[in-house]
C-alpha cells in the first residue's frame, strides 16, 4: 500500500466542533481519508472518537466546522442520508433481532428490501466474495458473536459503501477471526473502499492501518503512520503521559482458596450459554485469567461463582468449605467477592447514589447493617473510602451511579469489591470500556490484592490484559473451560486454539 499520495481524497473533516452540556466532545477536529485507505481513529474512552464518527454517520450534527465527501459538501442530517452518500457503519454493539433470520435482519436495515429469496442470494454472493461465510437462513440467536458481526458487515457491504466505519470490531473475535476480518478489510481497501477503523488496540492498528489520527480530550493530538511507530509511542500520544506497566510483587504460592469441580449450570438468559462440567482451582496469591469470545459462558460463570445462580452441591468450595448451596451474601461472608461485567444495572443500580451502591454488595462483609437497620454514616464513610483509595472522580458520594463516566464507575465497582478484604475475587471484564490510565490502576489494584494473598479469577475478552496480569490461563468455549495452563510460554496461536479457533472461517479463505 504505497503511493498513498496519488489516491484522491474521499472524506475531509475540517474544524469540526461539538459540545454537550458540560463537555466539549470534539474541538476543532480536522483530518482526511483517501479512497481505499484504512484510517485508524485512536484514542482513549471519552476522547471523542464516538462523537466524531456519529457526526460522519449523521447521528449527531456538529456545532461548527464542515465535512466534504468526494469533493462535495457533506452534512448528513440522519444515517439514511449518510448511507445514500456511501457511508456505512458497523457498530460495536450489534442491533440485531435474535429471533429473526440473518436475511430478515439484513432486510430490516434496508430502505427498499428486495424479496427475501433474492436477498438471501445476494448475501451468499457477498459473503463468498469477501470470505465471510454466513447462512442467510439461520437464526441470529444461534450465531456466535463473530458471526453476528459478519451479519452487520454484510449488511453494510450490500450498500456498496465508499467509506466503511468500524467501531472496535475485534473486541468480540478470537485471534484467528481477527486475522480473517483483516483479510476482508484489506480486500475491501484494495478495491477502493476506505475504512475508518476505531480502536484502542495498538498492535492491530499497526498491522492493519495506513494512517492514524490520534484524539485526546476531543482534540487531534497527532497523525502518524502506525507502521513507523511503536505501540508504546502511540499509547503515550493517546494518553498524554508515560505509562508504567503494572508491577507484580514476588509471591509465594499458597494453598487452594477456590476449588470448582464438575460445575454445570443452565443459562438463565434466553440464547445464553450453559456451563458444562467446569473445573479449576485457584491458589492464594494466584491470578487465573479466563479468556473467551463474548457469549461463551462468561456471564453465566460469574453468576454461578457469585451465587446468583444456584449451583449443585459439592461443585464449589472456598478454603475447603463447600459453599455451593449458599446465596450471594453467604458467599461474601465466606470470603468471595464478585464484580460483574455490566456496570449499570448489575454491579450498580443506575439511579442510586454511590453510598447506596456501596451498601449494595458491601453490607455483609463491612457490617453496615445492624439488626436489619442500615448504618448510613458507616456506609457513607465506606463509600468515601472507595472514592479516595481508587481515585474515583466524582463531585461526591451522593451522586447517582449513572452520572459517573464508565471508567470512574468501574473504578468504584472494582474498588468496592477489593476494599472488602476478600479471600477470593471474581471479576468479569475488569477494564471494559475504561481509559488506559484507569485500566492500569485497576490492574495494579488486582495484582496488589493477589500479592496480599487473595485468589483472583479474571474473566476478560482482552487477551493483552490477561497475559499481563494472569499467572495461569484458561479459555471458555461454548460453556466449557479448557484446563488452565501457565501463562509463561503460551503462544498466541495456542491461546487462539484454546478459545475455539476461528469458528469455521478458515475454510472460506482457503477456498479463495
Amino acid at each position: 500500500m504505497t503511493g498513498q499520495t496519488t489516491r484522491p481524497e474521499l472524506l475531509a473533516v475540517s474544524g469540526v466542533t461539538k459540545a454537550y452540556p458540560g463537555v466539549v466532545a470534539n474541538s476543532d477536529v480536522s483530518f482526511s481519508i483517501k479512497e481505499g485507505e484504512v484510517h485508524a481513529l485512536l484514542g482513549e474512552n471519552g476522547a471523542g472518537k464516538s462523537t466524531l464518527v456519529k457526526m460522519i454517520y449523521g447521528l449527531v450534527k456538529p456545532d461548527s466546522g464542515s465535512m466534504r465527501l468526494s469533493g462535495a459538501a457533506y452534512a448528513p442530517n440522519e444515517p439514511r442520508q449518510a448511507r445514500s452518500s456511501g457511508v456505512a457503519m458497523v457498530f460495536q454493539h450489534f442491533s440485531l433481532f435474535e429471533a429473526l433470520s440473518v436475511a430478515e435482519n439484513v432486510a430490516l436495515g434496508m430502505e427498499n428490501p428486495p424479496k427475501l429469496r433474492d436477498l438471501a442470494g445476494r448475501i451468499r454472493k457477498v459473503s463468498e466474495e469477501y470470505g465471510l461465510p454466513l447462512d442467510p437462513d439461520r437464526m441470529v440467536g444461534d450465531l456466535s458473536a463473530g458471526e453476528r458481526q459478519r451479519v452487520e458487515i454484510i449488511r453494510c457491504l450490500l450498500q456498496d459503501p465508499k467509506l466503511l466505519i468500524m467501531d472496535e470490531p475485534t473486541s468480540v473475535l478470537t485471534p484467528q477471526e481477527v486475522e480473517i476480518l483483516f483479510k476482508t478489510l484489506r480486500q475491501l481497501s484494495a478495491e477502493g473502499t476506505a475504512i475508518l477503523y476505531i480502536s484502542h488496540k495498538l498492535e492491530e492498528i499497526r498491522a492493519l492501518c495506513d494512517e492514524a489520527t490520534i484524539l485526546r480530550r476531543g482534540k487531534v493530538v497527532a497523525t502518524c503512520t502506525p507502521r513507523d511507530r511503536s505501540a508504546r509511542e502511540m499509547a503515550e500520544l493517546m494518553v498524554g503521559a508515560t505509562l508504567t506497566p503494572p508491577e507484580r510483587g514476588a509471591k509465594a504460592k499458597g494453598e487452594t482458596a477456590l476449588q470448582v469441580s464438575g460445575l454445570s449450570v443452565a443459562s438463565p438468559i434466553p440464547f445464553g450459554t450453559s456451563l458444562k462440567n467446569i473445573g479449576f482451582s485457584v491458589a492464594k496469591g494466584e491470578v487465573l485469567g479466563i479468556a473467551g469470545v463474548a457469549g461463551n459462558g462468561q456471564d453465566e460463570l460469574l453468576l454461578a461463582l457469585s451465587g446468583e445462580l444456584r449451583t449443585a452441591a459439592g461443585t464449589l468450595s472456598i478454603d475447603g468449605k463447600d459453599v455451593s448451596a449458599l446465596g450471594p451474601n453467604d458467599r461474601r461472608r465466606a470470603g468471595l467477592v464478585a464484580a460483574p461485567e455490566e456496570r449499570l444495572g448489575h454491579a450498580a443500580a443506575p439511579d442510586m447514589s454511590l453510598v447506596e451502591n456501596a451498601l449494595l454488595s458491601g453490607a455483609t462483609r463491612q457490617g453496615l447493617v445492624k439488626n436489619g437497620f442500615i448504618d448510613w454514616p458507616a456506609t457513607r464513610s465506606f463509600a468515601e473510602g472507595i472514592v479516595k483509595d481508587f481515585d474515583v472522580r466524582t463531585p461526591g458520594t451522593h451522586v447517582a451511579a449513572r452520572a459517573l463516566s464508565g471508567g470512574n464507575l468501574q473504578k468504584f465497582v472494582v474498588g468496592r469489591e477489593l476494599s472488602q478484604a476478600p479471600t477470593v475475587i471474581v471479576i468479569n471484564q475488569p477494564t471494559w470500556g475504561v481509559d488506559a490510565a484507569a485500566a492500569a490502576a485497576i490492574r495494579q489494584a488486582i495484582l496488589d490484592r493477589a500479592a496480599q494473598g487473595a485468589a483472583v479469577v479474571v474473566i476478560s475478552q482482552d487477551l493483552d490484559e490477561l497475559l499481563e496480569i494472569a499467572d495461569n490461563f484458561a479459555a471458555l468455549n461454548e460453556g466449557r473451560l479448557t484446563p488452565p495452563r501457565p501463562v509463561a510460554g503460551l503462544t498466541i496461536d495456542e491461546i487462539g486454539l484454546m478459545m475455539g479457533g476461528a469458528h469455521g472461517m478458515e475454510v472460506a479463505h482457503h477456498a479463495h
Partner: protein
Amino acid sequence: MLRLEKRPSPSRFWQAATPILAVILTMIAGGIMFALLGKNPVEAIRTIFWDPLFDPQYAAYSRPQLLVKAGPLILIATGLSLGFRAGIWNIGAEGQYIMGAVFGAGVGLALYPVETRWIFPLMILAGIFGGWLWAMIPAILKTRFRTNEILVSLLLVYVAQYILAAMALGPMRNPEGGGFPGSRNLSQIPSMANPELIAGTGLHWGVVAAIGVVIAAYVLLQRHILGFQIKLAGQAPRAARFAGVSPERLVILCMGISGGLAGAAGLFEVTGPAGQISIDFNTGYGFTAIIVAFLGRLNPLGILLAGLLMALTYIGGELASFILGLPSAAIQAFQGMLLFFLLAVDLLTNFRIRFGSKKEAI
C-alpha cells in the same frame, strides 16, 4: 419545537413540585370542563376543594368524612406502594379488603354475644390474616408457576365479591334482621365496634393505624435493609440479585404486607363506618388506593397527603353534584384528570424541556 432532554440525575425540586403542578393543572382543565357543562368553574372548584372543610353549612358533616375516607385509602396505598416500588403489581387490594372484612367480621360474629375487650384485637388479626391469605394466592402462583400477579390479583377481586355476597345472604346474615341481607351491625356491639375516637373528627382506629403504617413505612424505606432491597429490586432487578435479594421472597413479602394492610382496612371499615357485612360493602377503596399510591409518588408521606386530597375530591365531588347538580361522571373525569396530569408532569423529574429544533444524538 419542544425537545426532551434527560437529566443527569432526577430533579429533587420537580419530585416535590409535580404533584402541586398537577393539582393546579387539574383545577384549570376541570374548570374548563365545568364551564363547558354550563356551571360556574370557580364555584365548582370551590365547592370541591373548599366547602367540604370550611362551609358553615356542610363542613360539620363533611369534615369528619375526610379522615373516614382517607384512612383506608392511606392504609391500603402505603402497603401497595412497597410492592409497586419493587415492581410487584398487586392490583387486587379491593379483594383483599373484602376478605379482611369477611374474616374479621366472621371471627367477631362467631364469638357473638361474648363480651370481652380481646374480641376487637382478635378481629383485627383475623382481618389482616384474611387480606394476607387472599394476597398469597397470586403471590404463590407467581413464585411457583410464574403467573402474572396483575391478572390473578385482579380476578380474585370478583371472586371475593361473590364470597362477600354469599356471606351477606347466608352464614353471616343477621338472624334478627327480618330476612334482609347483611350481617348484625358490628359498630353497635361494644366489643366489636370501631368507634369515632374524638367526636366530630372522624378519627377511628383505622386512621390511627394508617398514620402508624405511614411512619413505619417511612422508617422501613429510609433506614431498613428490607426497604433498600425493595427499592433496589424495583430499580435494578439484576443488581438486586447481585446484592443477594431473593425475588421470590420479596414477592411473598410485598404481596403479604399489602394484602394484610388491605385486610386491616376492610376490618376497620366493617366495624366502623360501614358497620356490617353487606352485598355492597366495598366501594372501591382498593382501586382508588392505586391512584393514591402513585399520586403520593410511592412515598409514605406523599401518600398521606395524596390520601387526604383524594378523599377531599370524593367528598367535594359529592357535595358538588348535590349542590350544583354536576353529573357524577364529570366528577370522575375530574379525578381522572388528576392522575393524568400527575403522570404527565412526572416527566419533568427525569427530563427537562428544551425549546428549539436541534437534533441530538440518539
